[in-house]
């Protein structure tokens, strides 16, 4: 299949996802299940990465500011802005592309190979609607929440580091966080988070849903879905930055 065939089939999949649910309660149950899988299931790794990325940003900012004329307050601002603008939405979403994306692709791939998707279709259920829609919906709801948590924890990680290393007093760090804060940066980060959430869920869903072959193919499509998602996230990151900043 060539590139345009993939694009066409991906769009057809998205179109096929919309339809009247056969039983709203069951779809809602599946949506909540996916929210728990994507949101709570990824919370641990998001917390660990966020704290460390904030901590590393603080250490590296302190290391680079050697000029005594530059106020150390700027360390807090560097941590805040890098975490909000780039680390929390982009880095976390790249990690989630691996964690959530591979899970979605392998789950759907396994269902395809073991004929479970065919079984759903035979029952008269729109399998795209029942299997893919709740995953994309849950990702769009939960991933921006994880990004917000990552922002707070990243900034907190920076604070813990400066406190532990004594580079600057914590009250100076807190003061630095308040200065020159642009709420627009948070808006920009949220636009990125929603865009990336859609990529992280829909691209692996496509690769998993249309798997052809056996268990080897499931592994391949899972890897491919993560690679394609990461590239698309970086591409979207650049486009959004160029458009919105």
């Amino acid at each position, binding site marked *: 299949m060539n590139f345009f065939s993939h694009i066409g089939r991906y769009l057809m999949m998205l179109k096929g996802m919309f339809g009247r649910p056969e*039983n709203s*309660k069951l779809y809602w149950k599946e949506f909540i299940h996916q929210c728990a899988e994507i949101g709570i299931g990824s919370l641990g790794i998001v917390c660990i990465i966020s704290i460390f990325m904030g901590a590393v940003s603080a250490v590296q900012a302190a290391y680079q500011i050697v000029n005594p004329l530059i106020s150390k307050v700027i360390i807090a601002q560097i941590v805040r802005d890098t975490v909000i603008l780039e680390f929390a939405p982009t880095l976390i979403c790249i990690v989630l592309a691996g964690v959530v994306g591979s899970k979605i692709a392998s789950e759907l791939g396994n269902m395809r190979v073991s004929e479970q998707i*065919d*079984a759903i*279709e*035979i029952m*008269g*259920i729109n399998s795209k609607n029942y299997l893919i829609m709740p995953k994309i919906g849950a990702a769009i709801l939960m991933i921006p929440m994880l990004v917000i948590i990552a922002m707070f924890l990243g900034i907190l990680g920076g604070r813990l580091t400066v406190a532990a290393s004594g580079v600057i007093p914590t009250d100076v760090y807190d003061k630095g966080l308040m200065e020159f804060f642009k709420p627009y940066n948070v808006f920009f980060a949220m636009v990125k988070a929603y865009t990336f959430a859609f990529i992280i869920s829909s691209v692996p869903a496509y690769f998993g849903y249309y798997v052809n072959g056996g268990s080897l193919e499931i592994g391949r499509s899972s890897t491919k879905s993560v690679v394609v998602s990461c590239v698309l996230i970086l591409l979207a990151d650049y486009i959004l930055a160029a458009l919105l900043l």
Partner: protein
Amino acid sequence: MIEFKNIVKRFGDKLVLDNVSHKMEAGKTNLIIGTSGSGKTVMQKCLVGLIEPDSGDIIYDGVSFTHMSEEERKLLRQQIGMLFQGSALFDSMNVEDNIKFPLDMFTKDKQQVKLKRVNEVLERVNLVGSNKKFPSEISGGMKKRVGIARAIVLNPKFLFCDEPNSGLDPQTSMLIDKLISDITKEFNMTTIVNTHDMNSVMEIGDNIIYLKDGKKEWSGNSKEIIFSENKNLNQFIFASEFLQDAKEMRMIESRKG
């Protein structure tokens, strides 16, 4: 009743189904037999709409399935049950939830009523007490029976079984065959079974269609198959000396009868 007329299906250059026509009768166990790669599975997938034929018509009880809209097909599919070759049970659900899934999706009954129905079908397939087991905890034969239970839980008019005996020992295969045959008569369903199991052919084949290289080569029933002089069919059915002997024994018994 299901009738299909002049079904043609190609995958690229390969002609998989070549102008196949037949009538599958209600209340009978209809078998599609043939060697691996003869087009049995593609035929069955065409019949349920998982694969679209290139040409031809499929008619369910006088209504053309080929020309139905997607919504009409969804409604018809609620009258279809299917047992897949690998059973296709949902890994994340236990036996009870697997069987209850179509009831949850399409009925508004109370949980108690649904559970009663689940237990009824479990009893029918001799799996009482297996409600809470997961697919990974049960044997291949049990998976097939759960698959049958899930397929019949909504009382379908049409039952499709894709190689129900594959990977099963002869004794379990006979149990599954008998179950399919009994259920068909009990609920007056139109059952279509894909198989290359000779025991199934002889025991439950009320109406048999033999496919070779995508073409309908022969049709008849389990009694007629013994006296068939179709060379390809005989080579396929009575491949071993043991089966040849069994055929001769049956012929003698039939003539005596």
